[in-house]
């Protein structure tokens, strides 16, 4: 058991505060905003496993989010217990990744990205044609609708994903993923089964995206079945992750808070242009701050440290850093 660092204590306190919050307030605005933050954090964190750790840019992440929500929703509305429906959603999303992964990983880099994007779009259009009508929660459910359980479900899902990424940071599997990201041939040369590691990362990433999709299906009163397959869910997740810090545990969490607050402000005041703002923000981050807000924080800490101890210049050497996401673009 590692000993408690200040960072861990702060993290635990924040998690505890989020767990207790619905008991203190029943302000739907606050809970909704937080729930949407969890949604983005969950999507970004699950993308991070394949994109940030393993270096495979999947532009079709929404497909797995969509599959998770679709299966969960259809089974649940069809009378199955919710827990079973959601578990099925996760499993089917993971299986879909296994099926898609084998051919898709014959592609590399940009081609993999394009392939996954095309796959998600094809799925979105297909689902839109098969199930063209809005699904509504039954009146019974709407009458007793409460936000708190939805909030808890999404929070739990995110905490689980965060726990998994923390585990990856310290595990053999996580090291294997990072090695694949850094240099595939060198990873092979040290005995890593590259295809296997990519497949595990893809299935994990999709399973967890499906889980977030299931929680989302529980939250929304009515939507078109193909709504959750929309490409925006992929691109928003990627924006969140890069703004926060790709390939890190806290990056997606910080990024999602920043993203949801900014989006809320923009939608209220500058409706219509918020997508444009996020597009520009994404480009600026990639060019200027490839490690995202996590990197900004590290730079501030470094600056303070150097100014406090002018004789110890060795900190400067780490300034010329490359970041995990660097080889992705």
């Amino acid at each position, binding site marked *: 058991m590692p000993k408690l660092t200040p960072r861990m204590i702060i993290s635990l306190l924040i998690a505890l505060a989020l767990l207790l919050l619905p008991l203190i307030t029943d302000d739907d605005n606050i809970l909704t905003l937080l729930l949407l933050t969890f949604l983005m954090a969950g999507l970004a964190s699950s993308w991070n496993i394949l994109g940030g750790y393993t270096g495979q840019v999947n532009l079709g992440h929404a497909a797995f989010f969509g599959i998770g929500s679709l299966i969960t929703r259809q089974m649940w509305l069809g009378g199955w217990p919710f827990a079973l429906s959601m578990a099925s959603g996760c499993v089917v999303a993971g299986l879909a990744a296994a099926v898609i992964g084998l051919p898709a990983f014959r592609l590399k880099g940009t081609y993999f990205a394009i392939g996954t994007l095309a796959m998600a779009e094809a799925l979105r259009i297909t689902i839109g044609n098969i199930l063209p009508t809005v699904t509504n929660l039954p009146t019974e459910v709407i009458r007793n609708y409460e936000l708190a359980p939805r909030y808890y479900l999404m929070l739990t899902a995110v905490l689980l994903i965060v726990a998994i990424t923390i585990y990856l940071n310290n595990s053999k599997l996580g090291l294997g993923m990072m*090695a694949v990201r850094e*240099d595939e041939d060198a990873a092979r*040369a040290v*005995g*890593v089964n590259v295809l296997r590691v990519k497949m595990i990362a893809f299935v994990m990433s999709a399973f967890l995206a499906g889980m977030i999709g299931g929680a989302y299906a529980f939250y929304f009163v009515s939507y078109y079945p193909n709504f959750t397959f929309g490409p925006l869910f992929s691109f928003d997740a990627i924006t969140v992750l890069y703004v926060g810090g790709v390939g890190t545990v806290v990056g997606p969490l910080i990024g999602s808070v920043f993203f949801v607050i900014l989006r809320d402000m923009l939608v209220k005041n500058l409706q219509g242009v918020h997508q444009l703002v996020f597009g520009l923000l994404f480009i600026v981050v990639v060019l200027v701050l490839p490690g995202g807000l996590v990197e900004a924080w590290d730079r501030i800490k470094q600056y303070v440290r150097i100014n406090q101890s002018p004789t110890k210049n060795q900190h400067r050497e780490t300034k010329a850093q490359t970041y995990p996401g660097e080889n992705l673009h």
Partner: protein
Amino acid sequence: MLKINQLEVAYGDIQVVWGIDLEVPPQSTVALLGPNGAGKTSSLLAMMSLLPIKAGAVQFKGEDISTKKTHEIVESGLVLVPEWRGTFATMTVLENLEIAAYTSKARPLQKQTLKEVFEIFPRLEERKMQKARTLSGGERQMLAIGRALMLQPELLVLDEPSLGLAPLIVDNIFDVIAAIKNRGVSILIVEQNVQLTLESTDYAYIIETGRIVQQGPSAELLKDDRVVEAYLSL
């Protein structure tokens, strides 16, 4: 231990290796020498299944490995230190070494091997928490070799270990190679530094434009007129 038979390698239509034969007996140090573009690295990559083999056979410990996957070849004890080194830049020195204990054979011995690697390369222990990208070229080569040792190789293949390093560091690397040899590991070394390599190996092959043009005990090649004229006279 390693037996390469009529190996041919091509990049698409362009063939670069035209049927080479090479053998590394157990407990020996063998060199593959030759100029740029002769097909040295291509042969090694094909042997490790990092490049497709066009024709020919590769046997390791009496077993055909030409259809095996790279990670399976590594698991069987044939380990390559690539020319580009391939140290994982954003990972720490320690993580770079730990990941190399990936195979089922290396994992149980990880702690012991790590100690041995740090004995051979004290510099790596000093820097174990640093990211690999902050290392110098020589340190990166040490890390690449250390990482290969973590995999418990029976035959260590070194692709141009002296490439781009200062002369003093090259000497250091060759000392290390001698130390590894003394631990009972066979070595196949590809080099352009002919003098130093012939002095520290048992047997050598000379490859030019994809064909073996000469071979013999290293000590003899060191005195051979053609070799001296082509590679050693300046």
